């Protein structure tokens, strides 16, 4: 396996060799590159072999080992050149993402009430494995939810229609096909809609610690020392089941279509094929499930916040998805072309002037919400003009793990994690001590370095740094 060659301080390149159709680009400085497992480069090279891939297979600065695609992997495919869609390339937690709400309340006010607020949020936000405290919806309602996403949730009284403008694609992934979502996938959502889940999913109350870009911060409504709420979660069991079923189907489909897979997790099907279209329909329905889920959770968080702080006006900043395949127009070799952009553990980061952005953000670019780990910073960035060319408007999504869950459980007992965070003035509420150990902040890369490299490589621009005050975990 060749070593990536240095192109600049923040970009490395894998030359196309053997079955690779395009080069591999790795956005990292020398230090982040050293931290990446060698298998990440192999995975980037593998993605570069897939039919119809254009420009390059890419790894964002937070890239780490995934299955098929690396986490932090981006690849765009042209359907007219035999381009494929890959269920493994999107991943299990379809449209897992982050939604951030602006509260306009000063951090000192929250600090004084932080225990009460933490207890209430813990009580009102269903979280953890198998809680079954989410919504029970009929099969007909499920079809509507899968077709309409956030728009459905708003119609049911969760949030307001102004939230939709601040959500990718206006809150509804178009082209969703609820009929392509199996009964098993639906069963896995039984009373799980409107729940946070477990693992690295969280709800955090965060203080705006530092502003890097005044004009973008102003457009985003961010003031230093004010408090925001961020929610990180996905499409719950429904999305996981859609992924499982289509990965298996696509392994067989790829063999039928004579697509040589360097790794079975790269299972894919031509975009213009029945399997490809079915997957796209089911995946978009799962995106809508994730959007509806975050819409409901945001509403519950909002209500709770306004109970503790009467008169607070909580509003949406933005909602981004991390694991998706999106149909987008991009400039390639001087002409606009319709591509299917896979982002796995990567965030869409549209630059200024993009027609899909709400008017309020069009001049500064799309808010890019970067989640940290418990106890470390999170960041708000903005999409750039350069990023549109470099990475089809994509950027990093978070810190990425450096330590296995097994090691973390041995090293950081749950109680110790709580005490440690409390000393940092962070209130934690969790349903599981083991879960807390596994998610110890030390088990993650330093998100600040990842953000710095994203900023310096022009993938996205830093706007603000957030410090956690309350963390609710599954």
């Amino acid at each position, binding site marked *: 396996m060749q070593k990536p060659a240095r192109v600049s301080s923040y970009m490395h390149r894998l030359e196309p060799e053997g079955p690779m159709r395009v080069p591999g680009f790795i956005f990292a400085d020398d230090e982040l590159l050293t931290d990446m*497992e060698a298998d990440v480069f192999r995975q980037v090279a593998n993605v570069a072999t897939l039919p119809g891939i254009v420009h390059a297979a890419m790894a964002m600065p937070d890239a*780490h*080992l*995934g*299955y*098929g695609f690396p*986490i932090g992997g981006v690849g765009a495919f042209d359907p007219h050149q035999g381009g494929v869609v890959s269920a*493994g390339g999107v*991943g*299990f*937690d379809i449209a897992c993402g982050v939604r951030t709400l602006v509260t306009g309340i000063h951090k000192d006010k929250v600090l004084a009430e932080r225990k009460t607020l933490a207890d209430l949020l813990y009580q009102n936000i269903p979280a*953890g*494995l*198998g*809680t*079954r405290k989410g919504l029970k919806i009929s099969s007909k309602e499920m079809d509507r939810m899968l077709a309409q996403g956030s728009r459905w949730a708003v119609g049911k009284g969760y949030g307001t229609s102004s939230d939709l403008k601040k959500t990718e694609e206006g809150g509804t992934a178009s082209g969703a096909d609820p009929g392509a979502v199996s009964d*098993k996938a639906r*069963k*896995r959502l*039984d009373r799980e809609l409107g729940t946070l*889940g*477990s*693992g690295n999913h969280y709800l955090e109350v965060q203080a705006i610690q530092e502003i890097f870009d005044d004009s973008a911060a102003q457009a985003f409504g961010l003031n230093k020392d004010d408090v925001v709420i961020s929610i990180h979660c996905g499409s719950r*069991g429904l999305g*996981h*089941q859609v*992924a*499982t079923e289509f*990965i*298996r189907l696509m*392994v067989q489909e790829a063999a039928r279509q004579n697509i040589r897979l360097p*790794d*079975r*997790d790269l*299972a894919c099907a031509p975009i213009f094929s029945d399997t490809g279209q079915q997957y796209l329909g089911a995946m978009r329905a799962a995106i809508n499930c994730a959007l509806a889920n975050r819409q409901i959770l945001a509403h519950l968080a909002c209500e709770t916040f306004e109970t503790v702080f009467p008169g607070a006006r909580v509003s949406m900043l933005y909602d981004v998805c991390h694991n998706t395949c999106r149909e987008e127009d991009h400039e390639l070799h001087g002409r606009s072309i319709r591509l299917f952009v896979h982002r796995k553990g990567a965030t869409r980061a549209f630059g200024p002037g993009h027609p899909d952005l709400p008017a309020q953000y069009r001049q500064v670019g799309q808010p890019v919400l970067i989640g940290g780990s418990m106890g470390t910073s999170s960041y708000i960035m903005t999409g750039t003009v350069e990023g549109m060319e470099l990475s089809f408007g994509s950027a990093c999504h978070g810190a*990425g*793990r*450096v*330590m*296995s*869950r*097994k*090691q973390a459980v041995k090293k950081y007992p749950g109680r110790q994690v709580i005490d440690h965070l409390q000393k940092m003035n962070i209130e934690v509420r969790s*349903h*599981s*001590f*083991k*879960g807390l150990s*596994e998610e110890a902040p030390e088990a993650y890369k330093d998100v600040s370095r990842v953000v710095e490299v994203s900023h310096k490589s022009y993938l996205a621009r830093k706007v603000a740094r957030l410090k956690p005050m309350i963390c609710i975990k*599954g």
Partner: protein
Amino acid sequence: MNSSTYWQHLNHRADIGIEGTGPDMGQAFAQAGLALMAVMCDLKLIRQKESRSINLEGRDPEILLFDFLNELIFLVSGEGFAFSSLQVSINNGRLHARIWGEPLDGPRHQPAVEVKGASFNGLQVRQDKNGQYIVSCIVDV
């Protein structure tokens, strides 16, 4: 339990590896099932009050393992059933499994991370030189 029948977790930075070992393929699959449940809960907390069964067919042992693990994940995530004992037999590509456990109970079982799915990553069914079956898979959490 035979001393050569056991399960373990394998280190993986982002996800977690599960491995089952046994004198025949069925017992190795059963151990992998326990390793899977142990990612989510302490097995000692799960009582064996009810049983479920899984029947599958497939010629490729690795795809059979993929399907089996994903059926178990569905049992937990779709049916809300936690288990701590399995008996698996595999004959001519026909798998029959009996699974003992009880309904998943958050406060009592203290589940940690949820397993989202079993992928083809690290998916292996092999025999060592003594004929022991070792089956493994990286599961997404």
